């Protein structure tokens, strides 16, 4: 690891911190347009973060230190995830530090802490939200792992950087398995980011909310960190999906011009991806919580099919 690499890594993280609220704002804007509402400004997320960081924290009686540290842990996990996912370049110093399985583990760690914090205060909503989150999480995780194994089989490695490197620089080929994995990944990221078919990020209706139920007790800078972490999670998932299934335009080296050159491609892909997400959210209705296992079961099935099809069709013995 050299100084250039280190700076490039810091640049990628700073860009993630900067772009993540923008992506959330863009998705909200598209959603409002598609639903014939007046859209909030693109920078709305920044205004909200600014407001929340300037507010005092109100803690519930009996909130333990777990409740106070959880937002920082969740935020840290998401920043780490954004550092591992190759957003701009496949040759970053953090990339060999953790492979895809560890990446799934980082997401899992954040989920466990936010669920524990939700149960910590002892309100019924928090407990309910935490339990639902764990239900969704434990169904989504195997599907996500299967998606990753499919791509890992193609590139013979579980390191994210190597996978993206192989996929971006292969000759053109039709991979039915990648198509299956891509659809499964879309399902999983919808569920993991509390998006419409599974959860509604805009709702505060007590019977349906999952993510919002967990963070009801948070205020001030804690809430700001959690909101920022959710944006980062959406950003990390989007970048992972784009890197795995549309890997074109990701730089190979860690030189600064190469990084800057790959920014327009990333922005373009994120713009399209955000608009697609908003469109998916608009045309689908939120499903009952007990339909979520069916939804994620389908994702798991697609991912396993991708894996099997990969083994049967795309390898010649």
């Amino acid at each position, binding site marked *: 690891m050299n100084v250039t690499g280190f700076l490039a890594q810091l640049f990628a993280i700073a860009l993630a911190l900067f772009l993540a609220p923008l992506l959330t704002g863009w998705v909200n804007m598209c959603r409002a347009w598609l639903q014939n509402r007046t859209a909030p400004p693109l920078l709305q997320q920044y205004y909200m973060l600014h407001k929340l960081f300037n507010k005092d924290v109100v803690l519930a009686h009996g909130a333990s230190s777990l409740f106070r540290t959880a937002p920082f842990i969740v935020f840290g996990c998401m920043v780490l995830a954004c550092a591992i996912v190759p957003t701009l370049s496949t040759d970053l110093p953090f990339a060999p530090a953790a492979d895809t399985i560890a990446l799934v583990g980082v997401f899992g760690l954040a989920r466990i802490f936010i669920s524990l914090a939700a149960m910590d205060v002892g309100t019924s909503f928090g407990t309910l939200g935490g339990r639902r989150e764990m239900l969704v999480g434990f169904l989504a995780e195997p599907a996500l792992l299967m998606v990753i194994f499919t791509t890992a089989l193609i590139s*013979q490695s579980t390191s994210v950087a190597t996978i993206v490197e192989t996929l971006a620089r292969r000759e053109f*080929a*039709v991979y039915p398995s990648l198509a299956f994995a891509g659809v499964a990944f879309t399902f999983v990221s919808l569920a993991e980011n509390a998006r419409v078919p599974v959860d509604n990020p805009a709702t505060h209706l007590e019977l349906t909310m999952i993510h919002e139920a967990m963070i009801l007790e948070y205020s001030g800078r804690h809430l700001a960190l959690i909101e920022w972490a959710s944006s980062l999670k959406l950003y990390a998932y989007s970048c992972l999906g784009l890197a795995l299934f549309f890997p074109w335009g990701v730089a190979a080296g860690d030189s600064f011009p190469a990084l800057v050159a790959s920014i327009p491609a990333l922005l373009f892909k994120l713009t399209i991806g955000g608009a697609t997400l908003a469109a998916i959210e608009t045309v689908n209705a939120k499903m009952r919580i007990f339909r979520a296992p069916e939804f994620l079961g389908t994702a798991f*099935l697609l991912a396993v*099919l991708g894996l099997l099809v990969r083994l049967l*069709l*795309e390898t010649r013995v």
Partner: protein
Amino acid sequence: MSQAVPYSAQFINLFASVILLLAFAMLAQRRVLPLINLFAYQGFVLAVSTAAVAYMTRQHHLYWSAGLTLGLKALLLPWILHRLVRRLHVKWDIESLIAIPTTMLVGIGLVIIAFNVALPISQLSSTITRGTLGIALASVMLSFLMMITRTKAVPQVVGFLAMENGLFLAATSATYGMPMVVELGIALDVLVGAIILGVFFFQIREQFDSLDIRNMEKLKDS
């Protein structure tokens, strides 16, 4: 990295994968009309895939098979089934018994078995489509599973017809299709079978006021 798969085979593999995916979609579909539509899509993809094999291997008789598949399985049979469902007023029939995730898991198990069984057979074959034999076998078994898990008569018939789709794919992938006479015979059989089963539907409904074939267990010869 195995880049040995030629492009032509890649497209055939893609179509075969779509057929497998549609087989799973049919397995999970609870309503009657979307089920018939899925069956029609499967027939359509099968026809396109057969035409692709015909184009890539220059086996001209396969064009006839593709046309036959398109006309019969993508258009005529779905139309007959649609008419039947309308005439029988079972448009809103919903299969309530099946647990979708369990069925899906069993389905995955069947796919694994089918792939393993097909592997040694496909190594004996020398066609460029031999890889899809496993998928063909898997769709046959999935349709079989669908016939077993359903209790209503119309989905069972759709399962039966989908099984024929799988067999057709198997024939195409293993030996570039059966002789024309056999194919015509099978096509006629399937058509006649569907019509006879349609007549059966009316008989069953007249007898039991429903198309739930579990009622037939109560029949006693006394």
